[in-house]
């Protein structure tokens, strides 16, 4: 990729807005189209671009493969954890009303955490798939 100057420069300029847009989509899922699934994919594609431009070793210094694997499980754990937290506080599984001062505040907290769990898990799975394929390029 060293000869492709235009690709390198434009890619470098694009990675930060892509990641920012991914975070925007994640946290504004309540107010517009968006949510965890879309945000996880967009956030991952920012890192894909990084990996394609700068090479896999540099990407793996930022996002080690072990960390990405843990993120996959962390997302599901966060989601189920919100449900269990609701049970500990006395309500049914995944009943968000009890998570805040008022039921509406509890719903907001519940939805935010749950979508975050979804986003983290989807991001982890996309990066895992990318690393799995890319590792085979290097070896093959």
């Amino acid at each position, binding site marked *: 990729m060293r000869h492709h100057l235009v690709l390198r420069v434009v890619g470098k300029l694009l990675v930060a807005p892509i990641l920012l847009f991914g975070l925007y989509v994640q946290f504004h899922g309540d107010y517009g189209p968006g949510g965890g699934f879309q945000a996880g994919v967009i956030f991952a594609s920012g890192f894909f671009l990084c990996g394609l431009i700068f090479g896999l070793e540099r990407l793996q210094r930022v996002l080690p493969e072990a960390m990405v694997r843990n993120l996959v499980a962390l997302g599901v754990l966060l989601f189920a954890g919100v449900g269990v937290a609701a049970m500990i506080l006395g309500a049914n599984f995944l009943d968000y009303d009890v998570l805040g001062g008022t039921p509406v505040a509890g719903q907001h907290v519940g*939805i935010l955490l*749950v979508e975050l769990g*979804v986003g983290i898990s989807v991001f982890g799975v996309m990066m895992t798939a990318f690393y799995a394929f890319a590792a085979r390029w290097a070896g093959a």
Partner: protein
Amino acid sequence: MDTFIDVALLALLAVTAYAIVRLHDMLAVVMLSGIYSLLSAALFVVLDAVDVAFTEAAVGAGVSTLLLLATLGLVGREARPPEHRAWLPLAVVIVTGLALVYGTYDMPPFGAADNPVQQHVAPHYLEHTATEIGVPNVVTAVLASYRGYDTLGEVSVVFTAGVGVLLLLRRR
């Protein structure tokens, strides 16, 4: 105007699908499947399902194309030509398709307000989201709160897919 857009998009979908079936160059096929996903996303926008269109465009036209290109880097660009003609499967598919089209004559009008599917929980979700959940986006309210258990299942499916990829493709 709406009908024209619908017909145009569906016709482009059919042309893209035919081209995907008939091409042997896998790079062109991957690009065309990205275009197919983008056309499907446009159809979803025409149907007013913006969240779904967003997800389809991001996953289908974005990440899927990238991962398929990564696969092509490993397996090569040319597909083997098929060894036998597929006349019997084609006949089965055509008969099934015609039977399905015949079945749609019994369905209620598309999108009418008094369809049975709009009578049970949909009015409850639409009327009570503002007071019970307090978020403006009803799709997120249904996905994350009213039907949160189903979304937990979806995330578990994504997790299982990730585990499957790790089991099949890790080099160690």
